[in-house]
């Protein structure tokens, strides 16, 4: 299964519980469909956006940037994107395929 990277910008003014719920939801979407979540990375909390963005009938100037790395099949990846785009807490989300090759995904060093 290829390794994907979800780059997500979510609303700035969110409670911690709400943010946790969003991350959990995106992870469960992958896990329920036979995928595996590698981890989350925080790029910036409540950062100013590089330009004003409109989403869900609102203009946004600030947002939280985070990444999720996961393994899944392409269809699951598409489902995840569709679900997040409907979510009101998400301003923008995009998925990039990191790699297909096993050697690039995992450390295949036998000495470890």
């Amino acid at each position, binding site marked *: 299964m290829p390794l994907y990277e979800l*780059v997500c*910008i979510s609303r700035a003014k969110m409670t911690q519980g709400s943010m946790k719920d969003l991350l959990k939801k995106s992870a469960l979407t992958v896990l329920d469909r036979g995928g595996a979540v590698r981890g989350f990375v925080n*790029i*910036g*909390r*409540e*950062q*100013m*956006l*590089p*330009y004003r*963005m409109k989403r869900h009938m609102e203009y946004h100037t600030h*947002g939280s*940037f985070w*990444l999720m790395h996961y393994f899944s099949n392409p269809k699951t990846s598409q489902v995840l994107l569709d679900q997040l785009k409907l979510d009101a807490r998400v*301003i*923008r989300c*995009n998925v*990039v395929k990191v790699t297909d090759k096993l050697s690039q995904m995992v450390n295949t060093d036998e000495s470890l």
Partner: protein
Amino acid sequence: MFKFIQLCKPRLPRVACSFSSSATRSDPQTAGIAFKFTALEKDHSDSPAKDSEAANTKTRAGQTSPGIAYENAQYATKLFPNKPYHPSQLNAGYTGKPFTLIPRKARQKDPFVLMGINPLKEYKNTLMLSSFVTEMGKIKPRYQTGLSAKSQRRVAKAIRRARSFGLIPVTSKFDHEASARMFKIR
């Protein structure tokens, strides 16, 4: 572009210009730098019946001293009398072109090639991408970045991706200091 330059032959006979400081005192008109024009091509002025152009040239040149052209005359900057020049045009390496085209050695100096990095994988690296973007946020052309063609394409794609994902601005450069300040405040 190059064809145009070849076709554009000067109508005046080519003259070499030498700057001689010794002549400054004698000539009150050209106080400062004296221009000594010596004809490089064959002097047609001996036959007055021929071109009026040649006759004009002679009179226009004024105090041409026929005979000795100086040594590296062929590489001399071609300056003509009674023509206004900007001071920058009198510089040694002036070519009249806005930039020099990159010779075909970009791959040897390309930082991505030397480090073995795929710039497309660095689309999240806003600090790095900002160095390939002008103040207006436009992607720099290859003659300014000095990258190989392959790297330039990938860097440009990374920048377009980062813009679309909402990571870098479109009409300006990403202000890292301002964002760092914001992060500190938080």
